[in-house]
């Protein structure tokens, strides 16, 4: 275990003992090596018949993985011993490559080192026994931690593979459907034009009702229609069916009064024109919806875009907000962005991540019918990295649902006004996983917060 400047051992070794060993065996100026940062002390799998002690500085041990990448195995600070396994086993081959991370000073002993009696022990090996055991314990702990890490990584990979597979399949389906959707969209628009021509010629009075239906769609809620139907029946005496038709169209008072005066048959005729307009509008809205859904699916399967260094997270947040300026018009946005270090990432993916989180927040606040929807986006920097937080004051996500919100099929959105089949958060989760960042969410009525933690510095760049 390495804490602070000095090496501390996983088992109890008295300071006196360590100091005595350092002074006795590792103080010979003839057996002292000074290293500059980057110098290689030992090479993996090469002969080493020395036991080193670190007097100053920090050295790092690496082994090479199967694809040649270096993997850090230990950090040796002051009073640490390097080479215990090879020295005391007689194997005399270094297990790791050891490089000076900072400028450093090491002292060594070799196999010719004579034993210096201390009145307690009979051999050099005996004197070093606690350090040897400590080294073994240390390695054991490391193996355990690596096993845990491996489990986590395997699980994450399995998850990744699933997402990647899902993405690929989705993209394929999306591609297929796009043609069909295009046909539907174009033909609906064509149908609208043909009907418009027809009605202007054959039944001009119905034109204005057709256009209203086509433009506004079905704006009357079912509960409203039921109530209004009763009201109209009471007020005007028209039969139920006619009243229901008038109620559905939600006409201006003057137009409505005039229409009612014309009687049941005219009402039915005008309603028919309105209904045709609305139905075509429904077709166009549905096609539009399908297009958005397919777009989300395609994004899910998109290959990794190029990551470049020097990306400013704050800039990507600004861009996301700019792209969502329309849905954010009614929302009070509170921005608090501190100076953040740049990272290596694909700008588009970052922008998309923030957009999906912000959009989710907007939709939640919309569903909650808030008088004062508020969105707070903040970045903060700590020793561990950058933390991006997106917070809304919406109705929140119920506890049972929290686990499911990242599922591709989960959505609570309704009415066809918002698009997507709930893939927004799935895409966020996928992107965060690919970057090996951390995503967390907390939610209660009145506030939901998504946090993305981007580790910065050291091994992560």
């Amino acid at each position, binding site marked *: 275990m390495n804490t602070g400047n000095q090496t501390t051992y996983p088992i109890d070794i008295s300071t006196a003992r360590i100091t005595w060993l350092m002074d006795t065996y590792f103080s010979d100026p003839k057996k002292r090596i000074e290293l500059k940062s980057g110098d290689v002390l030992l090479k993996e799998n090469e002969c080493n018949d020395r036991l080193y002690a670190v007097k100053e500085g920090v050295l790092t041990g690496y082994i090479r993985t199967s694809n040649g990448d270096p993997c850090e195995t230990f950090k040796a600070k002051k009073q640490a011993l390097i080479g215990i396994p090879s020295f005391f086993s007689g194997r005399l081959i270094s297990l790791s490559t050891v490089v000076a991370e900072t400028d450093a000073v090491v002292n060594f002993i070799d196999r010719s080192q004579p034993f210096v009696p201390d009145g307690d022990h009979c051999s050099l090996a005996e004197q070093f026994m606690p350090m040897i055991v400590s080294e073994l314990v240390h390695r054991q702990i490391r193996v355990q931690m690596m096993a845990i890490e491996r489990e986590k990584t395997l699980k994450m990979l399995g998850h990744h593979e699933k997402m990647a597979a899902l993405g690929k399949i989705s993209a394929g389906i999306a591609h297929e459907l796009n043609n069909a959707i295009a046909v539907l969209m174009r033909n609906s628009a064509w149908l609208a034009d043909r009907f418009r021509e027809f009605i202007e010629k054959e039944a001009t009075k119905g034109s204005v009702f057709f256009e209203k239906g086509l433009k506004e769609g079905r704006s009357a809620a079912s509960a409203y229609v039921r109530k209004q139907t009763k009201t109209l029946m009471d007020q005007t005496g028209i039969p139920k069916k006619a009243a229901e038709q008038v109620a559905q169209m939600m006409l201006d008072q003057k137009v409505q009064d005039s229409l009612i005066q014309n009687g049941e048959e005219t009402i039915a005729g005008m309603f028919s024109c309105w209904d045709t307009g609305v139905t075509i509008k*429904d077709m166009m809205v549905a096609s539009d919806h399908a297009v958005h859904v397919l777009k989300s699916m395609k994004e899910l399967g998109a290959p990794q875009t190029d990551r470049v260094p020097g990306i400013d997270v704050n800039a990507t947040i600004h861009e996301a907000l700019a792209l969502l300026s329309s849905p954010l018009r009614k929302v009070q946005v509170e921005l608090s962005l501190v100076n953040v270090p740049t990272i290596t990432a694909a700008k588009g993916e970052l922008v998309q991540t923030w957009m999906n989180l912000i959009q989710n927040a907007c939709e939640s606040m919309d569903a909650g019918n808030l008088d004062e929807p508020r969105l707070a986006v903040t970045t903060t920097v700590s020793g561990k990295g950058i933390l991006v937080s997106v917070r809304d004051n919406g109705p929140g996500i119920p506890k049972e649902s929290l686990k499911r919100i990242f599922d591709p099929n989960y959505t609570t959105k309704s009415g066809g006004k918002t698009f997507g089949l709930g893939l927004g958060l799935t895409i966020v989760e996928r992107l965060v996983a690919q970057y090996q960042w951390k995503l967390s969410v907390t939610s209660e009525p009145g506030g939901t917060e998504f946090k993305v933690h981007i580790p910065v510095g050291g091994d992560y760049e």
Partner: protein
Amino acid sequence: MSNPKIICIDDQRDVLAALQKDLKPFEEYFEILLCESAQEAEELLQELDANGDATALLICDHVMPNKNGIDFLIELKKEQHFSAIPTILLTGLATHKDTIEAINKANIDRYIEKPWTPDELFKNVSELVTRSILRSGFDYKKLTPVLDQEVLLKELRHRAFDL
């Protein structure tokens, strides 16, 4: 007595409209009522019950905000006044697990996948309202154009044996 009701529940207005169009053959004999949420349907059912109106059938979507269709249908089965109303689950998305729950706990009578075909819809609605009408003692003779002949005969045969 007013016509028996067929209640449709779906959070998407355009789906309700499309459904209503396909239920046109039943319009003459049943009142088609539309609801955009489970809550709205609950209120409507209470209202109808208070007025002494009969509901012949419930056609319900599953994925809806707040309360979903299957949960709603499960609750309905627990209420004595409404548990006898036949139900059709009409849905674009229900997992295997959801479907099992719908069958076992909500005791749905039919499960239809979206998009539905008008013929399939007609047949299922016809069978269920036929049975529902006969069991509630309604005068079925006026409704024969939309009643299912097979179900009609079966129910009448049962009736004959009961006497």
